[in-house]
């Protein structure tokens, strides 16, 4: 039997746009999200949070809360495992997570959990929190990344820095990354113009519509059940088991439907707390965060302070590029400085490049991934400087990017050589797009930017079982955050040759499938997709074997075509094609149930690039910006379900518009978060957005059987820069600090005269 390993054209199902299988559930309210679970005897949990940015916890008195008849359990740090080792950097990540979900000796940021209650109602739990007395010794705090690196900055935690940090740096600097090649000094000397500038971005939140919610049961026997809203339930299982001191396999975790994650649900916040409460109360405990808790105590992205220097010749050739990137990721190691540095110059083929990243701790919540973590801010800084160079040298921004673009074989700024990539194709598509030549009205400006993301493979298991009637069920382990069940069904349909509607894709729980890395790194359509294809091919091999046995010919003389086994080679035409359902109808008698499965850690994710074009309009009297036109052009490798690819493109742009214009974490002098509600954390509303136009470029990824590249993250890489370039053009002043809120734009206009 011959199976083509790489198929990039003549698809029957892939590339079509059927309705998503979870669509009806979602529009009718039947879908079960995190907070939709109930259990008999269930209690409600609530978490007491520090009002201080940095404080030593001297004493916690829970006796008054415990005395209430409605209160069934109160937990503090003492109710978690004391065997989780503290180690520097991310080596100690379980300890970091434990310390984050329940404070130890110190409260490290406004909103840090210090105790939790389980009571018979949510109101009773909330009121019981008010009876817990915590005595704090307030310590000096720091929330700004640059200030946290100064000699006199308060130390968040000694010993958190890993081996990479040179001696003499402040203990808040916990990791340093340096990479590049060539000789940047020589490169700058060759340039006709060198532009050097400083940029900052604020922390933003993923803003998913569904707050974290879970229902936990942990018995005296150490066996537990956890229902939660997450991007990856195996990591939840592994982490919770470690933090509670139980065996991983004894905790079964089921992922609910998910109302958005964007990276923010790739770790745990409330789940270990709910389990600890349940263990103590010996009852199921439901815990649901409020929006304010989501802002204060989950994981926004990092804020950044960046210095960029780029040299260019008059003809647009970049001679050297250098960047220093300082990212604060809250009171723990893990800020994505390394990714920021590595992504910064990746779109360009450079002879001389150097990038340095610093991961810095502050008194803010522990950052979590947010769509291409670290990359959007890098693109903002770098692409702003390229825009400035183009302006000053009178060069066309697309031509300059084309001239310097990374291509197949380019040595990437961060090390490896690129394989087949699609940056040039996105730039060519941008050049040809009517948007680029459309006239602008007075007060409007146009900006473009490229963006890059690595994409990821990760541990993956998929299982596929055929039913007697010829339908198929596919069990995947990656929660569906963007329509992936539809894409899995399309890929399985393509291999099996049976209709899309005859395939049901389920997100299996941790007890019914092998390990799966979380739905992050734009990996799902790539890795679970690859595993689905391979699992389906595995089932097809078995189907062919059954046909060969029936026909009495060698198995390699049977091939699979359009959902049927057909004799091939010397036996071609000897027998009628045998449809899948005819084989499965009596599979119990011909050798047993037919299933396919696949487990691996695929490594060929295939990097992805995008080019965005933005038109913005600035009201010069108020500094208010409106994005009037937006076009996303991105390489998808192969769009399995084009509608969901377009949705990812549009979503990245929409979130980028928020990040660029109005979203920000605002801290007061007291280190408290000032805007922990959607009224004051200004995510764009529907009427703030133009229709976001999309162009799908398809340069197949050789690492996937159908050429897929992940698309979920790259779409948020160019927007900050593209919008900043458009706004700077419209306003006539370079905007170097995000968000470009109206007060900031107005004061830049005033300063400019």
């Amino acid at each position: 039997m011959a199976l083509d390993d790489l198929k990039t054209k003549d698809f029957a199902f892939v590339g079509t746009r059927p309705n998503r299988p979870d669509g009806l559930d979602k529009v009718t309210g039947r879908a079960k999200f995190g907070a939709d679970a109930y259990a008999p005897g269930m209690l409600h949990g609530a978490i007491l949070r520090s009002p201080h940015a940095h404080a030593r916890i001297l004493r916690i008195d829970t006796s008054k809360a415990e005395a209430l008849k409605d209160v069934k359990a109160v937990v503090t740090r003492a109710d978690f495992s004391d065997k989780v080792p503290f180690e520097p950097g991310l080596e100690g990540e379980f300890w970091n997570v434990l310390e984050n979900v329940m404070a130890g000796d110190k409260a490290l940021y406004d909103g840090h959990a210090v105790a939790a209650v389980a009571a018979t109602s949510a109101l009773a739990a909330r009121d019981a929190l008010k009876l817990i007395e915590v005595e704090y010794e307030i310590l000096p705090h720091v929330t700004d990344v640059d200030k946290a690196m100064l000699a006199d900055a308060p130390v968040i935690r000694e010993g958190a820095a890993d081996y990479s940090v040179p001696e003499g740096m402040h203990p808040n600097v916990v990791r340093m990354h340096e990479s590049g090649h060539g000789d940047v000094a020589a490169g700058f000397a060759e340039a006709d113009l060198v532009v050097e500038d400083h940029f900052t971005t604020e922390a933003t939140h993923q803003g998913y519509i569904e707050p974290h919610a879970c229902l936990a049961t942990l018995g005296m026997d150490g066996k537990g059940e956890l229902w939660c809203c997450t991007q990856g339930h195996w990591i939840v299982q592994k982490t919770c088991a470690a933090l509670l001191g139980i065996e991983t396999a004894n905790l079964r975790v089921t992922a609910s439907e998910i109302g958005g994650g964007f990276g923010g649900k790739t770790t745990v916040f409330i789940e270990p707390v709910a389990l600890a409460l349940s263990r103590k109360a010996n009852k199921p405990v439901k815990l649901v965060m409020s929006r304010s808790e989501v802002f204060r105590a989950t994981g926004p992205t990092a804020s950044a302070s960046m210095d960029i220097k780029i040299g260019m010749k008059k003809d647009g050739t970049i001679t050297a590029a250098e960047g220093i990137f300082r990212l604060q990721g809250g009171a723990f190691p893990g800020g994505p400085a390394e990714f920021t540095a590595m992504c910064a110059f990746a779109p360009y083929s450079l002879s001389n490049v150097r990038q340095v990243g610093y991961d810095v701790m502050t008194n803010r919540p522990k950052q979590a991934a947010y769509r291409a973590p670290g990359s959007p801010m890098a693109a903002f800084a770098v692409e702003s400087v390229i825009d400035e160079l183009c302006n000053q040298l009178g060069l066309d921004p697309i031509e300059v990017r084309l001239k310097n673009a990374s291509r197949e074989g380019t040595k990437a700024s961060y090390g490896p050589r690129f394989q087949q990539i699609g940056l040039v194709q996105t730039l060519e598509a941008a050049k040809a797009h009517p948007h680029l030549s459309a006239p602008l009205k007075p007060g409007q400006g146009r900006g473009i930017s490229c963006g890059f993301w690595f994409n990821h493979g990760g541990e993956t298991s998929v299982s596929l079982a055929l039913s007697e009637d010829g339908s198929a069920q596919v069990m995947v382990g990656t929660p569906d955050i963007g329509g992936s069940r539809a894409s899995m069904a399309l890929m399985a349909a393509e291999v099996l040759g049976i209709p899309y509607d005859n395939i049901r894709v389920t997100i299996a729980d941790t007890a019914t499938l092998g390990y799966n890395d979380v739905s992050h790194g734009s990996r799902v359509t790539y890795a679970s997709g690859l595993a689905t294809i391979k699992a389906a091919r595995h089932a097809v091999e078995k189907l062919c074997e059954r046909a060969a046995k029936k026909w009495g010919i060698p198995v390699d003389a049977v091939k699979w075509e359009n959902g049927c086994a057909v004799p091939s080679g010397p036996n071609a035409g000897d027998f009628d094609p045998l449809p899948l359902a005819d084989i499965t109808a009596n599979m119990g008698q011909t050798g047993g149930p037919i299933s396919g499965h696949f487990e691996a850690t695929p490594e060929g994710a295939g990097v992805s690039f995008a080019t965005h074009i933005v038109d913005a309009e600035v009201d010069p009297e108020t500094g208010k910006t409106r994005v009037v036109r937006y076009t996303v052009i991105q390489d998808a490798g192969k769009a399995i379900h084009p509608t969901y690819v377009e949705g990812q493109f549009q979503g990245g742009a929409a979130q980028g518009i928020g990040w660029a214009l109005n979203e920000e974490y605002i801290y007061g002098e007291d280190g408290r978060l000032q805007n922990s509600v959607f009224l004051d954390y200004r995510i764009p509303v529907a009427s703030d957005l133009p229709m976001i136009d999309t162009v799908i470029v398809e340069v197949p990824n050789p690492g996937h059987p159908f050429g897929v590249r992940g698309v979920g993250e790259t779409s948020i890489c160019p927007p900050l820069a593209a919008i900043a370039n458009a706004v700077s053009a419209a306003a006539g002043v370079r905007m170097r600090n995000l968000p470009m809120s109206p007060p900031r734009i107005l004061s830049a206009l005033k300063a400019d005269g």
Partner: protein
Amino acid sequence: MNYHSPASFAEASRIAADASGITRFLAGGTDVLVQLRADIVTPDTLIDIKKIPGTGEITRNADGSWTLGVAVPGAELGEHTGLVADWPGVVEAMNLVGSTQVQGRATLTGNLCNGSPAADSVPAMVAASMTATVTGPDGNRIVAVQYIPTGPGKTSLAKGELVSALHIPARGENAGDAYLRFIPRSEMDIAVVGCAVNLRLDGDTVVEARVSLGAVAPTVLLVEDAAAAIIGSTLDDAALDRLASAASAACKPINDKRGTIEFRTEVAGVLAKRVARIAYARAKGEIIKGHHG
């Protein structure tokens, strides 16, 4: 928490007068219920006024003035063609509050009595010279709406007092009003600056004007210098510049997460000009639809 739904304002006043702890009146509830759920204010006594007869009515009186029931939601104001024709500024200000869902409930009275310096309808009500009937243990009194809010979350209403009706004067000839607010987004946001202008013309000349600002001081401001800057003018550029300066000069804003002192002061002047132009055009008989931003 005790919930009451009295059948008259006298009864509502009596319940409030006798209550101890925190009392809230429940009009649309879009402030009261939000504050309750967010654990900001948990009232001991909640007095629902919507069941009192007449609270849902919009009445045009014989002299052309208007009486508004205290539970009339924004959406109904917006659908009342007569009211929109007479007082487009008051209506557009209230219609800016929240979303379609919030409009189905939120009221002018609640917006006024919640005491937010950024309340959208309040500058428009002040510019329109609106008054309120206040019912208390000693009967009714009439008070200019301008004097009801006294600071963030505070009103001049005494214990046992509540607003039982709102009144808008007769519109009269050659007059128009308008309201604009500045928000960084296009909707679902809170005013960083709000400005209302109500004026009357004789020919092309402004003969009466009231200019009011929101979100730039602890309470709504009625800026007499700003009105004086345009009275007697044809709203020429020089008059508009004087108006902007007077509006900016009157601001006593704070720096906060929603805007800086500098920004609010500057934008108050910008808005005053823009609003005055709309009010002027309306006074000239132009129909200019409400802005939602």
